[in-house]
């Protein structure tokens, strides 16, 4: 639980999800054989919020969902569902010790989902879900699908079938109510005309809506949606957003949704959690997350330099920048990479770019985000004509003051002879290297010169406070700056090191990069 508190540097007060979480995932770990799908993950889902769990493919999002909804038993960790306001911390702890699965409290009730079988999670804890691959009852009508969702209350009303067989009137009444409820949701999902058609007959988008309607018919307090926008066209996506807002605002249902794509969720999410390879890399309001450099790096998934090297992207950047004739041709960067990086951070700082900024220059051009595109322009211009760079100057980070400590000195470009391969420092992976470059940090001696304030600032800027000290970047850099070698740098030079960004797949050895840089500078 405490894990959720330290990542949000922007919020002044405790955010809603920490004050009043409907769901808390605490130190969740899920292993499949030797593979760690989710590692020590903690986050809170605020009551009445739309919370998005995003991350690249294979980040472990669906695994988290399956743990929350009971389809997987987590290897470790606690998952708390709360009915009623507040954290109810004492009750939760008491429940944990008691070995029971749930407990009614003064405020409502608390549930330990990791102890409950899947059907109880839906039935008792009131967590409903949808599936990535739609799972409707295809051979049953739309209306029947919604009645199956109301199985448990109807079962009671039918006297566990005995009253129903005898035809007692109470059941008729209950069934009519259930149908009314179904019709209500059909109206809100625009499916009422299809009520008597088999679910398998519906078009794709309608099936997605029906799945949500079906989940809502279980009267959940938390609705978990697994990629609800997948395969929807933009209009359907927009309708989905409206529906989700309606569910949140009118029914006070908290929504937790998984999305692959950042752009889709930014608009409606109150709170975004980003996973990458089973580890949480960012957590906070949408605005905060989409500007988080860690998120940007994770979303590119790999070296974004290669991305921009793709001919079609390069062309597109050039074309867009020409089309839009953005005048800002100043601040030429030595390397297109640095500029592109700057473009994203700039776009981020304007707080207007959507996923475009996040997924780098490539996306920036495709999306109609003028600021981002405009910002991308110098990058393109730069990449086209590698002009001689002006003298080094201080790199300005717009919101530098938001971070504790002080920003280290940065150079506009690497010095003569090219930048150092910063990934030779243990703890700096390709992504971090790029971010450091964007700060104007190119050389080991620059890092070696950092004082405590700088270390603190950079740590916070890179969103992993404490790590720089822990991994002794400064000390390593000192050795390397003198031309020495560390055990780690030897391995890097041999090309044997996968990227040191946590949980990241092996990036290619960075030595190639050094030569590349040297050549260009």
């Amino acid at each position, binding site marked *: 639980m405490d894990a959720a508190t330290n990542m949000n540097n922007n919020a002044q007060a405790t955010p809603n999800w920490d004050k009043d979480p409907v769901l808390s995932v605490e130190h969740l770990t899920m292993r499949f054989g030797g593979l760690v799908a989710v590692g020590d993950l903690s986050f809170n889902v605020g009551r009445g919020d739309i919370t998005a769990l995003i991350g690249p*493919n294979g980040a472990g999002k669906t695994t988290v969902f399956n743990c929350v909804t009971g389809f997987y038993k987590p290897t470790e960790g606690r998952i708390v569902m709360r009915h009623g306001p507040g954290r109810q911390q004492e009750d939760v702890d008491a429940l944990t010790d008691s070995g029971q699965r749930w407990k009614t409290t003064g405020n409502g009730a608390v549930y330990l989902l990791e102890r409950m079988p899947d059907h109880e999670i839906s039935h008792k804890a009131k967590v409903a879900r949808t599936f990535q691959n739609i799972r409707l009852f295809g051979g049953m009508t739309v209306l029947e699908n919604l009645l199956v969702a109301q199985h448990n209350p109807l079962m009671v009303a039918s006297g566990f079938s005995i009253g129903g067989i005898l035809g007692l009137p109470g059941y008729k009444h209950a069934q009519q109510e259930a149908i009314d409820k179904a019709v209500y949701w059909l109206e809100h999902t625009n499916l009422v005309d299809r009520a008597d058609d088999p679910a398998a007959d519906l078009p794709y988008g309608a099936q997605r809506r029906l799945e949500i309607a079906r989940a809502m018919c279980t009267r959940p307090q938390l609705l978990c949606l697994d990629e609800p926008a997948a395969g929807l066209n933009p209009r359907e996506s927009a309708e989905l957003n409206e529906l989700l807002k309606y569910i949140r605002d009118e029914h006070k249902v908290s929504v937790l949704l998984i999305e*692959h794509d950042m*752009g889709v969720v930014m608009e409606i999410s109150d709170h975004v959690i980003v996973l990458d390879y089973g580890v949480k890399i960012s957590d906070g309001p949408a605005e905060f997350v989409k500007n988080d450099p860690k998120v940007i790096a994770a979303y590119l*998934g*790999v070296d974004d330099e*290669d991305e921009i090297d793709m001919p079609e992207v390069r062309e597109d950047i050039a074309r867009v920048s020409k089309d839009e004739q953005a005048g800002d041709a100043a601040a030429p960067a030595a390397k297109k990479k640095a500029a592109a990086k700057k473009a994203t951070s700039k776009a981020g700082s304007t707080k207007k770019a959507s996923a475009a900024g996040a997924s780098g220059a490539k996306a920036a051009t495709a999306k109609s985000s003028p600021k981002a595109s405009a910002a991308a322009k110098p990058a393109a211009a730069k990449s086209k004509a590698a002009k001689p760079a002006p003298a080094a100057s201080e790199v300005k980070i717009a919101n530098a003051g938001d971070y504790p400590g002080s920003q280290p000195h940065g150079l506009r470009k690497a010095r003569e002879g090219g930048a150092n391969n910063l990934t030779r420092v243990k703890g700096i992976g390709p992504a971090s290297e790029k971010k450091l470059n964007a700060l104007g940090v190119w050389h080991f001696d620059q890092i070696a010169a950092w004082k405590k304030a700088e270390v603190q600032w950079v740590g916070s800027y890179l969103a992993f406070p404490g790590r720089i000290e822990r991994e002794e970047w400064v000390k390593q850099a000192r050795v390397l700056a003198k031309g020495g070698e560390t055990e780690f740098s030897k391995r890097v030079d041999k090309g044997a090191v996968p990227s040191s960004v946590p949980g990241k797949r092996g990036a290619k050895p960075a030595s190639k990069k050094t030569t590349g840089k040297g050549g260009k500078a």
Partner: protein
Amino acid sequence: MSEQKNPLLSVRGVETYYGNIVALRGVDMDVHRGEIVTMIGANGAGKSTLMMTICGDPRARNGQIVYDGVDITQMPTHEIVSLGIAQSPEGRRIFPRMTVMENLQMGAALVDPEFFDEDLAKVFKLFPRLKERISQRGGTLSGGEQQMLAIARALMSRPKLLLLDEPSLGLAPLIVKQIFDAIRELNEKEGLTVFLVEQNAFHALKLAHRGYVMVNGNVTMSGTGAELLKKEEVRAAYLEGGRH
């Protein structure tokens, strides 16, 4: 290129059904020799169905598919592919309990074994990663490696026409780039004809010589990749707000 008289593949008025549900509503399209042609469209538009219909599974209920002058509409799948069509299908369909090598051997099932080593060397040059994984089981590969294997397996059959169904699906950008580069290289160096189905419209249209847009089982637009990229409708529907 599109002015050629005899397209390598021509699809005319093809209608396909799943049971009583119509998936393709009279699709017309051509692929000429040496071209990269792409079909873009949203999920469920029928792109993959078209791909599979070309290979005879499901069979077209109406219409005609002619490949290299042969009417293949009613042929069984294994005979269609023996004419030189290879497909890397939706979902990759790697044989999960076979090794990478065996998967590639399956790809070469129809080819004279004397070419095997040569072809193997070629696909390993294209995808060096597969060489490292040679004795690993298909099911244990990562998504990107599986995609490479699916394409490599298709190439092992020495196809004249390569059908690729969403090669970029769920892959990291770098791998997408590698795969698209490989496709471009094969097309440029070996004159391989490629028909590519993509949701990732941006990349696909950049890569392709020509493109078609499919909506709800109909082809609604066609043109060169660049033309389509400029079209407002295409941009609105497939480039903005969607996936990239």
